[in-house]
């Protein structure tokens, strides 16, 4: 299986590279003469297509330095430690974490007038209610994802995967995995509560009681779980090695496995789940702000680049018509039936301070139990 994945990945990489290479020149020819310098980006793996990066560097003379991140909290703390003189220009913040970054003065408002390709983003993402805070835009949406139940379709049926209960069933004891932090929100939703905690913003006692309930549920079911994991690559590894048969996952890593030919299915279970949007943001006091805008405008230039990002990461592109540049399997791995999408809601940020002050210690308690 690993051989298949290796070959398939290489094929996909080539396909993505070709797509991006085809897409870039139109923008880059319009771009001004070489400006030089560099742009420093903190982002997730495969969020900057390699072919796009190479061509961007060649055409503009701007060196793109990518530092991989795997965690929003880590990114927040690193940036806070570096302010007021950060080393980063562009970061990848999830939409529901905007507020936290903004309140700590870590982001600069995005001047969309400087982005001639802003209109290439689907308005569902660029004009969503979460995208405007304090009357300003703070980031360019690039990819969207969701929390799904992913399963090995050779062993688990789609019907079984339509409920989160299967993840906690004796039948699949020690063959499951999840990210505890994300699972806390999902369990709250499964229990009939608002996992975003916005409803309890003015009732911290109720919020604490709900988090306690979710925590106790996960502690009670701890003997059934094989692994608490942190990153998408770990999930893929466990699936490929058949160490797990089902698990909670982000749709991106799961889609990448499907595109590799692995017998994987994914659902948004009937109890519901959460979605999120990744955005490129410019850091407050970014050392190379001009280059950051040049980069952002270039990466928004065409749906082919959006499609290349989807092919590489498995997350869903926010660009208009990006799906036109995906093959059937890629389209299938990045789309869900309407009835499942109806169960999905986006993470919201309004009650984040309350939520994370309760959830973070609960996560530690679950791990320690």
């Amino acid at each position, binding site marked *: *299986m690993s051989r298949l994945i290796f070959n398939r990945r290489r094929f996909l990489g080539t396909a993505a590279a070709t797509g991006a290479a085809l897409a870039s020149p139109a923008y880059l020819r319009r771009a001004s003469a070489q400006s030089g310098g560099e742009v420093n980006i903190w982002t997730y793996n495969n969020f900057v297509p390699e072919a796009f990066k190479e061509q961007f560097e060649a055409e503009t003379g701007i060196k793109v330095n990518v530092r991989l991140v795997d*965690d*929003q*909290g*880590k990114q*927040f*703390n690193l940036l*806070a*430690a570096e*302010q*007021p003189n950060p080393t980063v220009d562009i970061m990848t913040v999830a939409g529901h*974490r905007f507020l*936290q970054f903004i309140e*700590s*003065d870590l982001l600069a408002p995005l001047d969309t007038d400087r982005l001639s390709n802003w209109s290439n983003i689907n308005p569902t993402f660029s004009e969503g209610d979460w995208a405007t805070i304090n009357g300003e835009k703070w980031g360019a949406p690039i990819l969207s994802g969701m929390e799904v139940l992913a399963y090995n379709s050779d062993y688990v049926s789609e019907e079984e995967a339509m409920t989160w209960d299967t993840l906690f069933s004796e039948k699949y004891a*020690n063959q499951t995995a999840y990210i505890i932090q994300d699972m806390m929100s999902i369990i709250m939703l499964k229990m009939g509560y608002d996992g975003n905690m916005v409803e309890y913003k003015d009732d911290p006692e109720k919020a604490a009681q709900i988090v306690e309930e979710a925590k106790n549920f996960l502690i009670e079911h*701890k003997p059934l*779980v*094989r*692994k*608490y994991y*942190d990153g998408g690559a*770990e999930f893929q*590894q466990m699936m*490929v*090695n*058949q*160490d797990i048969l089902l698990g909670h996952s982000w749709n991106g890593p799961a889609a990448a496995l499907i595109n590799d030919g692995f017998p994987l299915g994914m659902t948004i279970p009937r109890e519901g789940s959460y979605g999120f949007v990744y955005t490129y943001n410019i850091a407050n006091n970014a050392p190379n702000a001009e280059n950051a805008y040049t980069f952002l405008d270039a990466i928004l230039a065409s749906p082919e680049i959006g499609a290349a990002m989807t092919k590489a990461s498995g997350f869903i592109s926010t660009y208009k018509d990006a799906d036109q540049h995906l093959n059937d399997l890629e389209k299938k791995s990045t789309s869900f039936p309407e009835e499942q999408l109806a169960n999905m809601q986006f993470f919201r940020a309004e009650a984040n301070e309350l939520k*994370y002050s309760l959830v*973070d210690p609960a*996560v*530690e*308690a679950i*791990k*320690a*139990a």
Partner: protein
Amino acid sequence: MTVDASAERDRRSMSKPDGDRTFWGRLAGWGPYHTLMRLATASPRRQFLILAVIPVLWVLTQHLGPMLQMVIVSLTDAYPVAPGVEQHFTLDNYSRFFGDSIFWMPFFRTLIFAGVFTFCTLIITYPVAYFLARHVSRKNQMLFLLLLLIPFWVGEIVRTYAIMILLGNTGAVNLLLKTLGLIDRPIPFMYTSFSMGLGIVYLTALYMLLPLYSALEKLPKSMNEAAADLGAGAWTRFRRISLPLTIEGISSGCTLVFLISTGFYATPVLLGGPSTTVFAETIAGFFHAAGDEWPTGAAFATIMFAAALVLTATFQKLMSALRKGEKK
């Protein structure tokens, strides 16, 4: 010979090469360099200071400095400091550990795991070191040591992934057992105390083996031969001669492995399961969590550091007492 006489001789030797037109020869004869070297080497005290300055600076800036910084952060109420926030000193981060029992389990689990893994490493590597030091010819010892060192040329993560490839449900061990007809279904080795222990023992083995080898290599063969002549069996010879005389190697190896084991992060995260969460993971969780959790993480790291030092010091004291007892 007096120090002055020695310095004068050195001075002459440095200025000597009249006909030496090489770079070093010219440099030695160059006035400012010559004066500088004469001043620097005028006394053993100065020579010592010159030699000591780089290592001392290294230890202070690269080792003690970051640890001191961590201790300072652990005593603050906010770090990194958000704009407009004033930082205060507090002991709250330490009291959080002592006031909340949920943190005790991973803490004590780490210390127990580290102790058990250290003991396992000792038991596994002692015979290897013994074989290497006592039964391999001098000529081949370096070759064997090189073979043992080779895995250490790659990093911790790569070696951890090697263990994953071995122990996974579709890994080499399960495949072999299945091929031999010993199992029908894969044995879930991964994400257990076993997989984590195997990984840590593998990663720390050399830190145990080298001190043991060094101690065993110094052990005179004649003592064992004399004991054998007097009728002592293999076990008695090991218990009465080899073990007591290699106690310093055991002490050094165990100290190294124990301290390293308490600090492992990536290996337990990748190989361990839900029931093997170690304290390093708890500490890392505070650094990942957004918003003023660094001081708590720093305090927890300091607590673990202090606990490991106290335990190691106690162990060293015990070993020292044991050595003294043997000498009597």
